């Protein structure tokens, strides 16, 4: 386990390797989106319940939109209303 961790540490702390990892991550993203498109093209009998699910790379698209929407809307709600100083309930 120790060697595995020092391996992980090397990957994270070496900027050259980190850049290489990042590049691979973009490749994975492209493959994920592409796989969705290909699969829906290959499978003629769709299991979709809704028409919007047949939109090309629907999962990838909705995942990105959801993630961004959750972060922005929550932070907005937090800033204007919900977030208080940590000692709010102590005072």
């Amino acid at each position, binding site marked *: 386990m120790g060697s595995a*961790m020092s391996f992980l540490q090397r990957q994270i702390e070496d900027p050259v390797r980190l850049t290489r990892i990042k590049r691979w991550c973009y490749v994975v993203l492209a493959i994920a989106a592409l796989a969705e498109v290909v699969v829906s093209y290959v499978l003629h009998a769709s299991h979709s319940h809704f028409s919007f699910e047949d939109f090309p790379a*629907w*999962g*990838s698209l909705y995942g990105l939109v959801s993630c*961004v929407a959750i972060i922005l809307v929550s932070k907005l709600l937090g800033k204007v209303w919900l977030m208080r100083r940590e000692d709010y309930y102590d005072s």
Partner: protein
Amino acid sequence: MTLEWVHPGLLLIFGAWALPLLKGRLKRAAMLLLPGAALAICLALTPGTYGVVSFLGQEVIFGRVDRLSVVFSYVFSLMAFLGMVYALHVEDDSQHVAALTYAGGALGVTFAGDFLSLYVFWELMAISSALLVWQRREASAVAAGFRYLLVHVFGGLILLAGILIHWSQTGSLAFGDMGASYGGLAWTLILVSFLLNAAVPPLGAWLPDAYPEATVTGAVFMTAFTTKSAVYVLIRGYAGTELLVWLGAAMAVYGVVYAVLENDARRLLAYHIVSQVGYMVCGVGIGTALAINGATAHAFAHILYKALLFMGAGAVLQMTGARKLSEMGGLYKTMPVTLGLYMVGAFAISAVPLFSGFVSKSMVISAAGEAHLGPVFLMLTLASAGTFLHTGLKLPYYMFFGEDSGLRGQEPPRNMLVAMGLAAVACVVIGVFPGLLYQLLPNAIEYVPYTLQHVTSTLGMLSFTALGFFLLLRHLDPELTVSLDTDWFYRRGTARFVNLVEGPLARLEYGLVGEIYELVMRRPVLGAAYLLRKLDTVVIDTAAVGVGRSTQTFSRILKTVMSGHAQHYGLIMTAGILALLTLAVLAS
């Protein structure tokens, strides 16, 4: 109670009291044997009705054993076992007794066939779990424990009121589908108490308030039993109630929103319990065979992966003393095993293929699709992205990677790692062999989670959620804040109420009420008293003084005669005799 029926819950509740009497290895053996035996009993159960007792002319059923109660009893007793493994090193008998009682209460609720025994076990769970909060023995934990207990006592009273009304209306205490009394007062009250325990907003703020305050090991038990036993009773009584569809979907998103704002690691995970239970409540509301199976399967899978996540966060808390994400970072160097096991739980809750959440959560989402509930489908899928965002990315990033905080926690004691390992194995086994879980579900239907389309769209969704996370990472840095939730009403709202009482209400009392009092009460009373006093002086005093005066005068006269000298008495007697003689002479 017949011999062929030993209640696994009562075994835990009464067996727990043996622990303080035992020592060392024997005690640790008993800690594992008790939940182990309960699990064995549950596994050996055959459907039927056991433990029927007559009480107050009612049938109290301690053992309703059918497919639904059996599958919940498996996961509750398995969870009790995993929790005890995790707590094996803790030298505090009161925690173990409380935890086993709590697990026993959950099993009691699961097997209860009537409202009376349901209510007793329900309250037992509330009290024993409050103890798990208090036993952290810090001021914030004591306060949170009191809030937790008061909320649950309130919920228990609502349940009791509902039960009594239901009893008076139907003449029966049997607990089953409540559809017959749909919309009635009893139906509503019992539903509200169930929703409170399921942490459905706005009744659910007690959960993220109390769970992060509990002991490291106690919180692991708490994640499993209260909300999931509430899901169980909702399936029993309220399957197909449309309100629950929308409450559940809203709840799934609500937990995710709060998780964005949260800095306390265990509170972030607690908000994700709310979110995950939302899927189950939604499934109960949809009510189809697939949806009920989905709610049950998701409860089963959720108990195991959520326990694993709380075990991981608890291990970090125990080994470093840090509970806020802003204090952590860089722990992967010294706690790699904890990180690895935590990530298994994170992948399971995020519904990554080959992990348990994938095969259970998708059932509920598919059921929403089959019922053509488009908005619900979208809300649940959005919450899925949010789950991965927080539990799978944000929390591990700030806890184990991120900016090095300088914290150097070691790996936790071996028993904690073993418990996490067992839970991780369960998460993977369910994910890889979903048939093992599916064959236990209440409804016999076919469901195939691993279709090409489903796997690719899930992987696409997860990887692009990760992209969104890294793009917006700067906005996610944990902040030193707390977030307002509905617990505000009893934490600050009550303080406002007290201010209202002390300020305006007090002035109102002294002013208006005081004036009215003066006018209505004091003046007439004083007037009457004055009159009475006058009567007293004039009539009674005069009479009394008069009597006194005449007595005094008489006494004074008497005094001149009664001088106390014998010669005076002799003189008077002589004078009297002379007077008598004079009378006699004159009369003759």
